[in-house]
């Protein structure tokens, strides 16, 4: 029996995403992906000890792959890739390039590579976003960095994909090409999530509560994973400041 333990947003998302990492698979995250890095290491420390994990922003855990990660993914051998975006829209497009007019942007983001290539070739994509607002979930993105719906002639994995936010887990259902709520985190209602989403999430009835992080998961994250991040040059400053004391 485990009791609920308070945790911050980053810890919550790291724990929830770690549960999606499968043992024996190859899972990777790109640069500036601290939360996925923690999720990967947590999965490795718990239920996925034989997972191949690739953390591109890490000094020691990037596996020295260089362009091999690109070709691995192009060959369809990358099982899971983590991604973020500044905007998501109803049609499954996401934006990691610019906010505002693309020719005179208000904000410029690092953008293109993972969005345009990895998100098309990795078998499963997990998105994460540390806010849940109508500026993130919009009817139409300002710039399409990745189109998750393409004609059947474009051969690519077509699994459902998920977005993990501070309020909920959203699933993009390939059968209907629309988002629905998989679960809502403790402390929020499906109606509140819908209010902060700029497109319909379909039925709000019977949506389960996201199983919160267990005491064991948080303990491992705050001890073993934190130490490993610091030791291996995997966002050590982030690990020290964001992951709480055990």
């Amino acid at each position: 029996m485990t009791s609920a333990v308070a945790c911050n947003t980053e810890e919550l998302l790291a724990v929830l995403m770690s549960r999606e990492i499968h043992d024996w698979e190859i899972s990777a995250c790109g640069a500036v992906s601290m939360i996925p890095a923690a999720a990967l290491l947590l999965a490795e420390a718990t239920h996925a000890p034989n997972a191949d994990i690739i953390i591109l922003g890490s000094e020691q855990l990037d596996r020295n792959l260089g362009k091999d990660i690109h070709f691995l993914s192009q060959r369809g051998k990358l099982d899971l890739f983590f991604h973020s975006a500044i905007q998501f829209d109803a049609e499954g497009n996401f934006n990691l390039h610019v906010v505002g007019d693309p020719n005179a942007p208000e904000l410029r983001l690092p953008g293109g590579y993972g969005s345009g290539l990895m998100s098309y070739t990795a078998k499963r994509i997990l998105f994460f976003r540390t806010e849940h607002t109508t500026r993130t979930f919009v009817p139409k993105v300002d710039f399409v960095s990745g189109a998750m719906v393409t004609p059947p002639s474009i051969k690519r994995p077509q699994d459902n994909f998920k977005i993990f936010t501070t309020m909920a887990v959203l699933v993009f259902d390939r059968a209907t090409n629309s988002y629905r709520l998989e679960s809502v985190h403790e402390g929020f209602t499906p109606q509140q999530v819908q209010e902060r989403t700029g497109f319909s999430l379909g039925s709000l009835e019977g949506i389960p509560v996201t199983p919160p992080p267990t005491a064991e998961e948080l303990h491992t994250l705050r001890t073993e994973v934190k130490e490993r991040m610091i030791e291996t040059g995997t966002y050590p400053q982030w690990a020290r400041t964001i992951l709480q004391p055990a």
Partner: protein
Amino acid sequence: MGVPYIPVRGLAGTDVFKRRDDMIIATNPFDPTEETVVALAQNPNVAILHAQKADRDGNALLRKHGEDVMVAQASHRVIVTAEEIVDKVTADDEGGQFISAINVTAVVHAPGGAHPAGVPGYYEQDADHIREYMRAASDEALFRQYLAKYVIGKTEEEYQSMVRQGSRVEVHAAGGGG
């Protein structure tokens, strides 16, 4: 590779694709049910690559994780600038990625040539200078000032002596205990 174009998995339906005229969607000639993006080969006239070491024949040792060898192979002419010119660089040398002289047109001795980026084993990146550059690059007038200060009408020696006043000195000082 020498190919005129290459199929790429990805990019279909993106605004990146729509804004470029060097990529199209084409049918797989061996499978009419499949389409992919096809990208035009990029063949720069000249590539300039900075190495740790090079020899007079053009063999060089470059930073490990970059795609410099690919860039060299794609380019018509390749100039290698190097921290050090040594007698012989071979594929067995450690600490970098080997590029053969067959891919190199010319070699230039250019110590400090990566500034404000760093070279492993030689110097760290100059974070202050990069910040200065980024501030300048955000604004047309500031960028003109930057160019006037560091680039236009300046020799390599003048540039190096200006930037050496900054963090390069600190880097050497920080390494003084070793």
